[in-house]
């Protein structure tokens, strides 16, 4: 396949967008969901001394964010290889 094949580029871009939608949904659910919108409901549960909603807002979201970026790095490196866009 030539490097600038438009169909190949389109396919690569669509897969990239699919990853973005999945990862950003998780991003939204942990921070705006668990940490803000559903905080009060989650606070009914505790984990050690933490109320769960409070923990997501001040700890959990941050940790998930880091994992999300590394998941994206992994997925995209694999995708680059599949489409021979790796440098």
């Amino acid at each position, binding site marked *: 396949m030539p490097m600038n094949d438009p169909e190949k580029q389109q396919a690569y871009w669509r897969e990239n967008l699919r990853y973005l939608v999945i990862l950003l949904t998780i991003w939204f659910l942990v921070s705006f969901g668990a940490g803000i919108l559903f905080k009060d409901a989650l606070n009914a549960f505790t984990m050690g001394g933490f109320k769960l909603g409070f923990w997501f807002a001040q700890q959990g979201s*941050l940790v998930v964010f880091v994992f999300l970026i590394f998941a994206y790095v992994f997925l995209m490196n694999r995708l*680059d290889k599949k489409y021979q866009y790796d440098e």
Partner: protein
Amino acid sequence: MSELFSQMDVQTWTYLIVAITFALYIGIAIWFKASSTKDFYVAGGGVSPWANGMATAADWMSAASFISMAGIISFAGYDGAVYLMGWTGGYVLLALLLAPYLRKFGKFTVPDFIGDRYYSKNARMVAVACALLVSFTYVAGQMRGVGIVFSRFLEVDITTGVLIGMAIVLFYAVIGGMKGITYTQVAQYCVLIFAFMVPAVFISIQMTGHAIPQLGFGGQVNDGSGVYLLDKLDGLSTQLGFAAYTEGSKSLVDIFAITLALMAGTAGLPHVIVRFFTVKRVRDARKSAGIALLLIVILYSTAPAVAVFARTNMIETVSNEPYSEMPEWFSKWELTGLLTFTDKNHDGIIQYVQDETQNELVIDRDIMVLANPEIAQLPNWLIALVAAGALAAALSTAAGLLMVISASVSHDLIKKIINPNITEKGELMAARLSATAAVAVAGYFGINPPGFVAAVVALAFGLAAASFFPAIILGIFHKRMNKEGAIAGMVVGMVTMIFYILKFKFGVFDGGKEAVGALKDSWWFGISPEGFGSIAMLINFVVSLVVMRFTPPPPKDVQELVENIRIPGGEKDIPAPQVH
């Protein structure tokens, strides 16, 4: 030898540690001197992902993150989460939606991207104005931070402190450019994270027996009572009339809006974005964003723990205790004016309560981190280390901002608009001169801080969210987006943001600052000025998309540029589209 060390006082230690770190920063800058404009703007474009991740983390974590954030959280409780999530969640947006594509685009500045993608000098000018406004706002705060640390720990006055800070930054930013700054920031990250973590670990062990603060803050108090620390703090807070620590007091919609505005603003800040121009490949940009966030989260996840330790310690030390029995640090901080006690009922005992009429103690939130090691009675060298850490945080951020200012002037204004025929040597000279001028302006504001510095931080994030963030996202993800749409969106977004801040933060249209409190009830959708960036951002998106519908699509070469930046690979330069 060890006897000598144990006898040295805090001030001697501070001079020693600060001098060593400053010598290190200057040495690094000389070693990595910039010799071309590419070195000066983007460190030659060959920085490794780990070095860039560390530099980005130091660039990002300012005096405010180091000194103020834990203090703010210790007073705000749950509400402090807006900063924790907002200032980290933005990196997810940056890594997934911006950094890889901007790296592929591969120029020097954010206005470069806006100007080329929207094939327009006007778009570039709007971007330059915005970059300068955001960066100057921010850098003044950093210089002030340098001054405060110097005055507290080295007992020189704030002006002298700011001047010393200026001289250091001037030296290494002007000589080293982005290349020198990158490697000083790597060193500064190490200093600041060490200085933040060591006291936190000590205090966590003291209070809860856990060596990891992130666990300690969810653990039990170290007195055998089996009470969880957070439950204890909730109890202490409500007893004194404050909101329960884990509940907070802001409205749900405002928490949501502020978090979103800070996230989008973080992703849109030019001094952060430009760091991703310095790595070699697209995959390095993604990876270094992950590393940067990991390194930032080490500090950001510790800060709420420090906040809880400091708050509990503070209340237990002062509340209902006789003034005459306060420890030494109490009077030291009283001297700085950051801690004030007025014995309203003349009983010689400190009443620290929510109710303004009975409260006798005013605590500046900046004390919480700076005084924490003293309150916990940690050794002198550790207290000195905190000072060096705060300076590293302030200087690294200031230097990153100065780079944005200098590149905006020498590259975007002089090279791209005023004098396109300038030589490489001339442009490098212009970059050094504008960095010098920017240091002078920043220093001036550090010595004579305009009363609005704290207030305009909200504006800086709001502006970045309302202007750059939508323009860049649409530029990458919407091929049909044209210059008319993008410019209209940026201008309307920025104007709305500035209007909202002027109205609700400064009360400009209702008779000045005094009116601000009463205007709270007329906030749009109940959203504070801090959170309004999210609304202004939505307005930008809507205006851009509507205007785009009624105006011609971008030319073919621009559409090809968009196709090109979406795909990694090939170090070949992308030809800049014509200005149409």
